[in-house]
């Protein structure tokens, strides 16, 4: 059905690499995108789905000409029949071709929203119309970025795309950090834009969102587009998906097949970690936590869900002992949290690249707390000989997270807090890591607190689910 529509953007044989230095003076080329072909038609909503850190954003940056100086680009991009080069970009970027920034950090914090939304080519009248359309008060144009709430911010960012008659919109990860409701609202708005004839290229790691709203889904893996199919094929179920990787990706989602989770072993209830009436705020700011009560039993997996900004991570920091509660108390087996030695409560963070020292080889980081045995590493699919001698920046986020999981499973670990551990990973890696971790937790009868915004995942993993927005 796409064949008779006008092609807006065509990518032919595109390769993008970065010149990197080896340990000495030799340079090598790190290929991020290999021989990519892609076509985007008028009014089409195309989602490129792939794991975080796999280089999807490089595509958007290449289209906009934002690559750093050490990038090497081959192949060509064609925009409406013309070669997309510096001259053409100067003419169309900001007018016909628009990038929707990922977050408010892309905005000038000292400029009022009205001026930022209008940009170089918008008019005041147009901005008023668009604000009305998106249910934004006119007073928003007099506000600074920090005064906006998450939802308002998202809508103003989309408003920037509507100042001119855009033909092509590039959206790079438009949803992380948004609650499900807000993410869906954003998608609705994209859908509306594409129905009005605009071509949309969305880059995301959230396959579920892509499938529900986009027309076409392109699966990105290791620098290549392995499969392009209609989003409707996903909705009809795994059988209609022809490519094995796409099918595996779909099946790995928590709401689909996932893996056979193991129920808790019945033991006599013993409270491991408990917080009583905990309130917390940073400095003299607003209260983030108010009178929160929580009990985690031995051998129990507790899920903590709730929209972003409700203090899930803050609660984790308080429970782990990084922050002292302003009111109330945190108890570990009825007493105070231990302060010295190997901590029985271990944490797994959202960004493994931040949890590993970039100047340490992975072998060193892996054995920082204990020496994981080969069997565990094998189950986590850590390629021992290959990976241990490497530096963190040489592996992907999914590979690094495997190390982070292995190193917290020391013999003295009794409780694990996993804070959005798999949010940035692709579905298959997410499934594999959770499978090993859950097996280990069940086998040893550890307690675990799973913090996530993904309800389907929490339902599959946890014995009990708590919603922080209701507890606060």
């Amino acid at each position: 059905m796409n064949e008779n529509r006008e092609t807006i953007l065509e990518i032919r044989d595109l390769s993008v690499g970065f010149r990197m230095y080896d340990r000495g003076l030799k340079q090598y080329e790190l290929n991020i995108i290999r021989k990519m072909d892609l076509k985007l038609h008028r009014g089409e909503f195309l989602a490129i789905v792939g794991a975080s850190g796999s280089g999807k954003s490089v595509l958007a940056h290449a289209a906009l000409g934002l690559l750093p100086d050490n990038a090497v680009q081959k192949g060509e991009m064609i925009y409406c029949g013309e070669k997309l080069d510096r001259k053409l970009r100067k003419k169309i970027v900001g007018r016909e071709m628009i990038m929707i920034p990922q977050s408010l950090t892309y905005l000038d914090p000292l400029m009022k929203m009205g001026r930022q939304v209008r940009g170089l080519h918008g008019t005041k009248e147009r901005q008023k119309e668009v604000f009305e359309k998106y249910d934004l008060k006119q007073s928003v144009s007099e506000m600074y970025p920090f005064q906006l709430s998450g939802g308002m911010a998202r809508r103003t960012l989309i408003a920037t795309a509507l100042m001119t008659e855009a033909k092509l919109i590039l959206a790079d990860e438009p949803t992380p950090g948004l609650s499900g409701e807000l993410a869906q609202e954003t998608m609705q708005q994209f859908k509306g834009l594409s129905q009005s004839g605009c071509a949309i290229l969305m880059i995301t790691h959230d396959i579920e969102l892509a499938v529900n709203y986009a027309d076409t889904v392109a699966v990105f893996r290791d620098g290549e587009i392995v499969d392009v199919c209609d989003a409707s094929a996903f909705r009809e179920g795994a059988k209609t998906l022809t490519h094995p990787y796409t099918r595996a990706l779909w099946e790995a989602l928590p709401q689909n097949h996932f893996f056979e989770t193991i129920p808790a072993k019945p033991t006599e209830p013993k409270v491991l970690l408990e917080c009583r009436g905990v309130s917390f705020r940073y400095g003299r700011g607003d209260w983030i936590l108010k009178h929160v009560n929580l009990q985690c039993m031995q051998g129990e997996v507790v899920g903590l869900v709730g929209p972003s900004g409700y203090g899930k991570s803050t609660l984790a920091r308080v429970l782990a002992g990084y922050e002292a509660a302003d009111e109330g108390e945190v108890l570990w087996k009825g007493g105070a949290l231990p302060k010295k030695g190997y901590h029985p409560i271990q944490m797994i963070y959202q960004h493994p690249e931040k949890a590993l020292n970039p100047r340490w080889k992975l072998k060193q980081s892996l054995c920082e707390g204990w020496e994981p045995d080969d069997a565990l590493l094998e189950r986590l699919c850590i390629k021992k000989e290959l990976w241990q001698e490497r530096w963190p920046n040489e592996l992907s986020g999914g590979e690094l997270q495997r190390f982070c999981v292995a190193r917290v499973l020391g013999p003295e670990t009794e409780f694990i807090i996993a804070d959005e551990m798999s949010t940035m990973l692709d579905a298959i890696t997410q499934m594999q890591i959770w499978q090993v971790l859950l097996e280990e937790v069940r086998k040893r009868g550890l307690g675990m607190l799973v913090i996530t915004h993904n309800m389907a995942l929490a339902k599959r993993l946890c014995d009990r689910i708590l919603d922080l927005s209701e507890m606060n």
Partner: protein
Amino acid sequence: MNRRTRTILMIVLSFLIITVVTIAGAKMDPEAYAPAFAEKNLGPSVTHLFGTDWMGRDMFTRTVKGLSVSIFIGLLASIFSSVVALFLGTFAGVFGGKVSAAFNWIVDLFTGIPHLILLILISILLGKGAKGVAVGVIVTHWCSLGRIVQAEILSLRESQFVHASYRFGHSKAWVAIRHILPHVLPQFLVGMVLMFPHAIMHEASITFLGFGLPAEQPAIGIILSESMKYLTTGMWWLAVFPGICLLAMVVLFEALGSNLRLLLDPYHAQM
């Protein structure tokens, strides 16, 4: 030739020139710049590249000797100053809170007073001479580097891999040596090298003003201030050549530091 090769070549080259000048000056026979009244007030020629002064001293050898003295004092002062910066910055970074606030207050105090005035005061207080200059430079130059060290440690302290390390039961000292120090060291090295040109310039400045090294020593500051008296008689070479040489040294040190930074700074390292 890629950029990293060029950078390393630049570093080696500037380092070589600086070392040669320093050693040549230090090993120089005092006879080479002794007064020779038979050859006074000569313009630049093949035998006297930079000409001679009113006492017949060869200006080229005097300049080299003077530069060597300046580099030596600059080196000494900036190394000590960096150590002060490292010590105080680490102290403020590790303890944070009130210690950090006190540190910032002291830095503000030092940076609030014009460098040169503070330097002159300290130099006079210590009876001028090499000691006065060196101590003056040490006391006034640690501020900005100290701030860098402090900020780096403060942000490292809050990083997840440091937190994780504590969770594995490692002590503060262990974390400081294994995790924090390797991150601070490159910043510190670059900061130290970039402090050299400042130290040299300030040494030359206060000597020029007469609050630094004694007049009998062939220092660049002395040479320049003496040449002022003879400029009006048309002896331009007394000021021009030593001045250019001082400038060249400062530029070389600057090049050394900025190239080191290009090599060590992760934001530039891959270019």
